[in-house]
Each structure stands twice: as structure tokens, then as C-alpha cells.
């Protein structure tokens, strides 16, 4: 038993040393993992919606407190990336608003090619006639399908909305065998 005691003690010391080493390595790698995730874009979506200035300020505070120059550089990179994401999020929303305005704002004759103008005139006649008569039938449906593909998206949308308002107002019944919109 006494002969085995040194071996046992040596084993315990080596084991404790290994555990400590592993712990130090783990602590040292933690921030790097977090930074890698941000840089790789894993957290891109939440970051784009989060209040970027607050996140950036937190990154700066962390960078100032960090003893590791590499870590500070990484955090600065994150800050720049967060700023970029916030900007791209705003740009995307602005682009969506512009796209919607294009759709819902209507088209003018200048926007239309000759064949689009012809299709629009025909479609408008069909829609206005149906609203005047208070009835949308298979005749209107099939006539509209013939010209719908040529319409500008904004014209198509405007005509749909015309039908929608008339229907919601109780001024248009739909007896067509296919759904009213085209």
C-alpha cells in the first residue's frame, strides 16, 4: 500500500494539472467562438433587427476592457459589421416601401408600352362595366384572362383593388365559376 502512495499522488497532481489547463484553454477560446459566430453571419438576422447602436456600444466597451489586442480588433470588426447590418436592414425596408409604392401608386400612360396601354384600356372597360352592372360573370373572367398577362403589375393591382372595393361595398356580386381575381 505504501509503495503505491507516490504513484497515486503523482496521478492526482497530473490529473489536476490537466483539468486546469483545459479550463484555461476553454476560457481563452470562448470570446473567439462568439466572434466567429458573429463574423460568419450566424447572428446576422437578430443583429439586423436589434438596436445596433446599443450592441455596438457594448462591443466597444468589451474591446476597451479586453487585454488581448486580437480580441479588441475582432470586436471592432463586429461593431463595423453590426453598423453595416443595421444599414442594410434599413435599406431593405426602404426598397420594400419603394416596391410597394410602385405597385400601389398606379401607372401613367407614359409607363406603358403600346400593347400594355391597349390591354389596360380593355381591362378597364371590363372592370368598369362589371361594376356598373353589379355583376362579375364567366364572360368578364375569361375576357380579363386574355389581357391580364399583358398588364403592368401596377395596372393589374389597381384593377384588382377597384373590384375589391366594389365587392366589399356590396356593389358587386360574383357568379363566375372561377375566383374573381385574375
Amino acid at each position, binding site marked *: 500500500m505504501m509503495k503505491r502512495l507516490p504513484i497515486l499522488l503523482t496521478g492526482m497532481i497530473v490529473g489536476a494539472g490537466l483539468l486546469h489547463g483545459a479550463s484555461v484553454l476553454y476560457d481563452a477560446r470562448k470570446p473567439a467562438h462568439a466572434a466567429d459566430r458573429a463574423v460568419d453571419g450566424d447572428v446576422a438576422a437578430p443583429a439586423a433587427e436589434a438596436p445596433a447602436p446599443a450592441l455596438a456600444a457594448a462591443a466597444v466597451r468589451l474591446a476597451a476592457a479586453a487585454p488581448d489586442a486580437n480580441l479588441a480588433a475582432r470586436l471592432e470588426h463586429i461593431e463595423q459589421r453590426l453598423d453595416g447590418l443595421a444599414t442594410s436592414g434599413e*435599406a*431593405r*425596408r426602404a*426598397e*420594400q*416601401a419603394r*416596391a*410597394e409604392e410602385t*405597385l*400601389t401608386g398606379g401607372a401613367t400612360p407614359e409607363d406603358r408600352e403600346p400593347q400594355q396601354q391597349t390591354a389596360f384600356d380593355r381591362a378597364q372597360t371590363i372592370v368598369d362595366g362589371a361594376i356598373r352592372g353589379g355583376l*362579375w360573370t364567366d364572360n368578364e373572367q375569361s375576357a380579363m384572362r386574355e389581357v391580364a398577362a399583358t398588364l403592368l*403589375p401596377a395596372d393589374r*393591382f389597381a384593377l*384588382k*383593388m*377597384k*373590384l*375589391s*372595393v366594389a*365587392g*366589399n*361595398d*356590396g356593389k*358587386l*356580386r*360574383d*357568379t363566375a365559376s372561377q*375566383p*374573381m*381575381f385574375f
Partner: protein
Amino acid sequence: MFNGKKLTVGKGLLISGGALALVAGVGGIVHAGYKVTPSAWEVSFSGSASSGSFAGALGSARASSDGYQYIGCEAGWFGPASSAVTATFTPTTYGYCYARDRSGNVRSCYLSAHSNDAMTTLSTINQDSYLAVSYFTVSGNVYCSSVWVDNYSHNPVKTN
């Protein structure tokens, strides 16, 4: 004596048969689960042109005997129209919800391109869903203001 014994056996059979029918009946009810009567969730409207709502189950509308009813939503994705703008174009999505009641009256609304979350909701609609949609009108455009989707086991089932 013989007649009396025959009568006793007959009674026993009758009681056993009754008990069996009762058990089978109760068992049948338990297994059926709660179901909404299809006609209870047919297409219905409320409100006016400026604001209102429409609702109904897809299964009820389809099972209705009038030949008119339908209800549902559609959504579309719109990307670049040419290769020249693929680098700068931001794709957008929008959609519509519609309903037609048993008399051919219609209600509909537009789902704005800003309603990206609504598109996620639309994707949960299935053939047995119940929909409740509300809308309002501004500048001649009818916007959907809410889309509610119920996917419960008691919903009327779309059969054909």
C-alpha cells in the same frame, strides 16, 4: 318449467346484446372526437367597404351546396425582372385574401409587402384551416389588417 328456462335465456341474451350495443355506442362516441358541423363555419361577412371582416373554413366552403362559396389567401414572391438588376433588386412579397358567400357576395383584401410576418402566417393555411380576415380601405386600396388561421382537429375537413 321448460318454458320458464327458455324465457330466462332469452332475457339474458337481450340484456347482453343491449350492454354490447351500449359499449359499442359509447366507444364510437369517444373515438369520434369533437367536430364542428361544416355548415356552422360557412363563409360569413361583417362590416362595410371602409372596414370589415370575413371568415369561414375551407372545408365548410367547399362542402356547401350553393356552388358559390370559397375562401382563401394567396401569396406571391416577386424577384428581379432582368439580369441587369439582380445585384441591386430587393425581392418583395405580397398577397390577397378572398371570400365569396352563398349568394355570390365577395370580400377581399391586399396583404402589404411590408407584411413579411403575414406571409409566414399564410404558409400555415392548409385545406382544413379556418380563416378570419379583417380589412380596411385607404386611398382606394383595401389592406388586410389581420389574418387569423385556425388549424384544429375539430375543423370541417375538405373532402373532395
